[in-house]
């Protein structure tokens, strides 16, 4: 027991000390938060690598404001409670800005902590409208919003594909369901929604819902969710003899979808930002990333640009002070791997050009 008390005291002492040492050394700390462990750890790894790459490049150039940049990773396990803990840890450690979180359900509660501490947060992947609709001055995102994305997908379905019967499936997450509802809203009166179904994430067998959707006989099936479930759905639907194409969003826009779904994914549509692999601005990023970490995930480039924006703003502001930094981010006019980025008053990207992609001969290609 005595030993335990001693241990507890020692632990407390370490925390108390570690808090003080952080700010005095000659480094600038930036935080990167996402799910580094847990079921969706792959997104966390993609993000962390993107941030790492940006930080390494800056450090190779001599850091920012004459100081080296130190990256502090934070694991929120895709869980709101952990996200708040991570946010508090960041603020206690004197982090000057944060890239992340991934899930909207984590970004939203964490943003309140950052807001109170006056630290800027740039999310690379939280697309839920609520995040920036809170009107916190410190919250930004480099990705789009689900309402914009839902509109893009909806318009495409109505105008280009001219569908009449649509089935909607979502994965009951903030992202998936929100996106699905926005899509449905944008279909207009001429289109009938023949099924609106939710699935449980993490399962393998979706045959009941697929059977049901198939019997509703749609022209197009919308899926709001991530590629893991998306790939399985498409595969099981096609295996049952279904023929309608699928359309999804940034969540299914991944090489993994093609691997999981196999040949069945041919002809699947996805809304996403314009092609970064062909854009000259992203060429350097893609090459360097591949050299270090292998094939980039779809959100790696977003994390990379978010980091660059944060560091560039520190440089522009000439200070790490929260207020000046936030003002600098708001004023930034940045050209990076994703193209041209400026923020509006809410913290969203001014132009977020969603385009539609299609799987052709086992590759995602932008629909011209």
């Amino acid at each position: 027991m005595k030993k335990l008390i001693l241990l507890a005291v020692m632990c407390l002492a370490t925390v108390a000390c570690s808090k003080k040492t952080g700010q005095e050394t000659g480094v600038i700390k930036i935080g990167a938060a996402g799910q580094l462990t847990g079921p969706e750890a792959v997104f966390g790894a993609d993000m962390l690598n993107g941030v790492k790459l940006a930080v390494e490049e800056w450090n190779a150039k001599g850091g920012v404001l004459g100081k080296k940049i130190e990256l502090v990773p934070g694991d929120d396990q895709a869980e709101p409670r952990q996200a708040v803990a991570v946010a508090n840890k960041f603020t206690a450690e004197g982090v000057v800005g944060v890239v992340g979180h991934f899930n909207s359900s984590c970004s939203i509660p964490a943003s309140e902590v950052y807001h109170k501490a006056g630290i800027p947060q740039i999310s690379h992947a939280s697309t839920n409208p609520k995040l920036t609709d809170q009107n916190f001055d410190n919250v930004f995102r480099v990705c789009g919003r689900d309402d914009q994305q839902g509109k893009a997908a909806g318009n495409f379905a109505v105008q280009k594909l001219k569908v009449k019967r649509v089935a909607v499936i979502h994965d009951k997450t903030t992202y998936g369901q929100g996106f699905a509802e926005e899509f449905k809203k944008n279909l207009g009166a001429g289109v009938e929604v023949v099924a609106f179904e939710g699935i449980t994430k993490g399962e393998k067998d979706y045959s009941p819902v697929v059977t049901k959707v198939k019997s509703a006989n749609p022209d197009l099936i919308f899926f709001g969710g991530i590629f893991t479930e998306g790939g399985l759905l498409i595969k099981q639907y096609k295996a049952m003899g279904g023929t309608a194409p699928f359309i999804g969003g940034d969540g299914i826009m991944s090489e993994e979808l093609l691997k999981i779904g196999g040949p069945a994914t041919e002809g699947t549509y996805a809304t996403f930002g314009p092609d970064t692999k062909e854009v000259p601005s992203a060429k350097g990023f893609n090459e360097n990333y591949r050299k270090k970490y292998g094939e980039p995930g779809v959100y790696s480039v977003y994390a990379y640009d978010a980091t660059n924006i944060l560091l560039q703003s520190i440089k522009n502001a000439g200070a790490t002070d929260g207020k000046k930094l936030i003002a600098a981010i708001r004023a930034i006019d940045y050209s990076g791997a994703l193209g041209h980025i400026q923020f509006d008053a809410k913290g969203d990207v001014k132009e977020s050009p969603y385009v539609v992609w299609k799987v052709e001969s086992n590759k995602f290609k932008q629909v011209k």
Partner: protein
Amino acid sequence: MFLQHLLNGITIGGSYALIALGYTLVYGVLKLINFAHGEIYMIGAYLGFILISLIPAMPPFLQGNVILMMMVVLIVAAAICALYGFYLEKICYRPLRGAPKLTPLISALGASIFLQNFVMISMGAKDQIFPQTIGMKTITLGGVSFTLLQLVIIFSSIALMALIYWFINRTRLGVAIKATSTDPYMASLVGINVDTVISVTFMAGSFLAACAGVMIGLYYGSINFTLGYLGGIKAFTAAVLGGIGNVPGAMVGGFLLGIIEALGAGYFSSEYKDVYAFFILIAVLVFRPAGLLGKGVNERA
């Protein structure tokens, strides 16, 4: 439509039943819910994946024969997985024999977290994709669509269940398991090595779970390290539905759960898919407190 849903239910139900057997067997001898069993199933699926990716390095006579090759993969994966069960029991449960009832539950959860993260770190967090092998062609018969692989999987799970039924009822070791689950103390008095019986039970349960894992991997094509969580909960529910500790009960429970879920999601809303299973479970337990095939709960005086 109805037949299609039924077939869907039976396919997934077979894997629930195989995993449920592991829960039931262990519960029979130790009166313990082996919460790490879901992870064993996940490990089995991964072992299957690793072995299949080794196929190009295998001798040519194996590569020519798809059926034989799959059998080899299934058996080797299940055998290694049985060892996992063996060590799980030895490390996490054996030192806790005689400890308060809930203690092994915690070490089981510890083991579950450990195994999940072990696989995540060593194999990566990404989904692993099984190579598309055989029997993926869709056959439609009287409005019901299915694949050849699906039929193979249904029949293999039934065959495995028959095998375990035979093992429990007809072999010396199986009878020893039955004796131990009835009364461990008496079993030890008549010369049964209870420790060995417990180890064998864990190995048998893990063997079946691994078979389910490999088949699920082959059929659905992708696995990841969180597979064990939902699979574990579902199978556990199935085991209780049928009457935990009862071998035919686990089989019935597994198939029943699969069919309830398929019909519920098909005819009502798929959003509440998991709710139907639990409602049925509660309803069944209210009328039959020891599950469908379970015998009355023993009251100790």
